[in-house]
């Protein structure tokens, strides 16, 4: 059916009472996502959007039997919020927050790796399984259910690709934004493995960008473990070296992380790489037929 989120997702919103948290929680509810509780320290006992608010994730999880959490708290509190969710035993934690210090994320990731929690993000748009659940900030209306799994390091660029797919009537099984930071919870290879195992995903779109070498690792993984057709896109072909392009992780440094290397790595394992977002949909359409 999908990966990571579906009709069985019972979601906690950390930061529900804040401006962004409330806006996006309302949007998620409108999409049909089952939000079962909110968490804002010091605001336990209130109700927001018809949902009970708790002081801690542990209380919220126990009272509402939640299995997923989404985090909208400011950067200086976000690392703590992720740890709290993991410590409470939440299965899936999606962190939207941008701007978490990288040393905090190194510690958080080291801790998460010792638990059964899966972290998506931070600095990501979240996860959506069209028609089932939206756990994120993406515009739900551009998505339609279907056979294509999408995994991406960016936000709006993913919407662009999804809109191009939907525009051709090609739906999506799940769309996962893994985030643009140098240290994230779930990488391309993790999501590729999930899509490969999902019977309803027939083809995969992978949207990478400059910086790091996760795309190169993904190419190796695809060669060994992915039987489904994959179409790639790499943002930043015109990006100069040594400059951070918005995302904390999008920087070509020490001669590593250039778009050309990533494109070459993907093409060498038979993954066609689109020149622009519209072309992603064209390439997928060819492979689905």
């Amino acid at each position, binding site marked *: 059916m999908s990966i990571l989120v579906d009709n069985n997702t019972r979601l906690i919103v950390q930061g529900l009472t804040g401006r962004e948290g409330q806006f996006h929680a309302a949007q998620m509810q409108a999409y049909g996502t089952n939000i079962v509780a909110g968490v804002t320290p010091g605001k336990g006992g209130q109700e927001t959007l018809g949902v009970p608010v708790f002081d801690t994730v542990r209380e919220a999880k126990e009272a509402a039997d939640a299995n997923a959490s989404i985090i909208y708290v400011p950067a200086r509190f976000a690392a703590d919020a992720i740890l709290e969710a993991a410590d409470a035993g939440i299965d899936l934690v999606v962190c939207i927050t941008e701007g978490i210090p990288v040393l905090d994320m190194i510690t958080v990731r080291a801790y998460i790796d010792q638990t059964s929690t899966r972290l998506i993000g931070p600095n990501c748009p979240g996860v959506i399984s069209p028609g089932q659940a939206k756990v994120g900030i993406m515009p739900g209306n551009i998505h339609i259910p279907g056979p294509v799994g999408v995994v991406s390091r960016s936000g709006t660029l*993913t919407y662009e690709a999804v809109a191009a797919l939907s525009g051709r009537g090609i739906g999506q099984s799940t769309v996962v934004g893994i985030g643009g930071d140098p240290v994230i919870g779930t990488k391309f290879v993790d999501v590729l493995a999930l899509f490969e195992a999902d019977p309803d995903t027939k083809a995969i779109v992978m949207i990478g960008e400059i910086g790091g070498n996760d795309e190169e690792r993904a190419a190796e993984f695809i060669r060994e473990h992915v039987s489904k057709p994959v179409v790639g896109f790499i*943002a930043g072909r015109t990006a100069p070296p040594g400059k951070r392009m*918005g995302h904390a992780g999008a920087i070509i440094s020490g001669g590593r992380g250039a778009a050309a290397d990533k494109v070459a790595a993907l093409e060498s394992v038979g993954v066609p790489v689109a020149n622009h977002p519209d072309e992603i949909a064209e390439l997928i359409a060819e492979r689905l037929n």
Partner: protein
Amino acid sequence: MKLHEFQAKRIFARYGVPIPKGEVANTATQAREIAQSLGKPVVIKSQVLVGGRGKAGGIKLARTPDEAEAIADQILGMNIKGYTVKRVLVDEAADIQKELYLGLVIDRERRRVVMMASSEGGVDIEEVAATKPEAIHTTVIDPFLGMRSYQAIGLASGINLPKHLFRPFTQIALSLYQAFLGSDAELAEINPLVIQGDGSLLAVDGKMVLDDNALFRHPKLEEMRDLDEEDPAETEARVNGLSYVKLDGEIGCMVNGAGLAMATMDIVKHYGGEPANFLDIGGGARAEKVAAALRIILSDPNVKAVLVNIFGGITRCDEVARGLLTAIDEVKPNVPFVIRLVGTNEKEGRAILAEANFPTATTLAQAAQMAVAAARGETL
């Protein structure tokens, strides 16, 4: 955020790393006075935020206060890779027997802080990595345990440091790690770490890059930012919470989201244009932010057309449209605009723009082609 050498070394010293005696001079007279009070040969070092200062003639030895004044006079005002030297560091000259390298970086793939040491100091470590990788020894630091003494000793042994220096080396390595953590650095480097004639170790040069995302907890470090060394447009972008990188092309780009901003630059190039900049207005951009973005883009005289590409998720298109109109009204640009708004509240956004007679596009490919044509002076 990059720090100057003198700033990095002062931070290192605060954590116990030995550095040369020295002070910063803004004038040649000050340089003479500092040399005089140190009473020894000094090194006059230009303080600019680029590498290769030595090769460019920005680092020189002065044996007497007279020489110090003359050399400082020469170096102050010098242009090094586009940066004008406004101050020099006057350091007591070290008695260099051997040059080592010691540095800390964040290793993305390992998701750990890594310390590197090399017996080949005084040259760019990336050069050593390329030509003589076996000369670099690394140790991976566990975030829960922190840097441990045995790891430093392992490095010392790896680079064949004389055994009597293991202890001071370990002390310096642990201090550097504390400086790195305490400042939320992305990079902290002592290059060279010098073995002097008397057998002591001294951090002769230092480099530090701080994590911009962590500056909120280091207000004192944030104050060290040297605005003279930043492109004024990049300063204005930062102050307004925008992410901007100037490029050499003629099509200004204003986009929400870093990935889409890069893809927009790429598609401009794909259709035969050259992007003038990277600019991400971020999520939830309001009118003031959009106006600031526009001013920044138009401050570049090379810009012949502006491509606005907004895919609304957090950012609502009607907000962007209103912001654009306010900004255009305020800035009164004399270059053509191509605007593409899609996503949350796109109908409202487009209606607002249509009322003001702005050309809008629905697909990115279409928008890019229109912008390239507009920059060539073709009518839309």
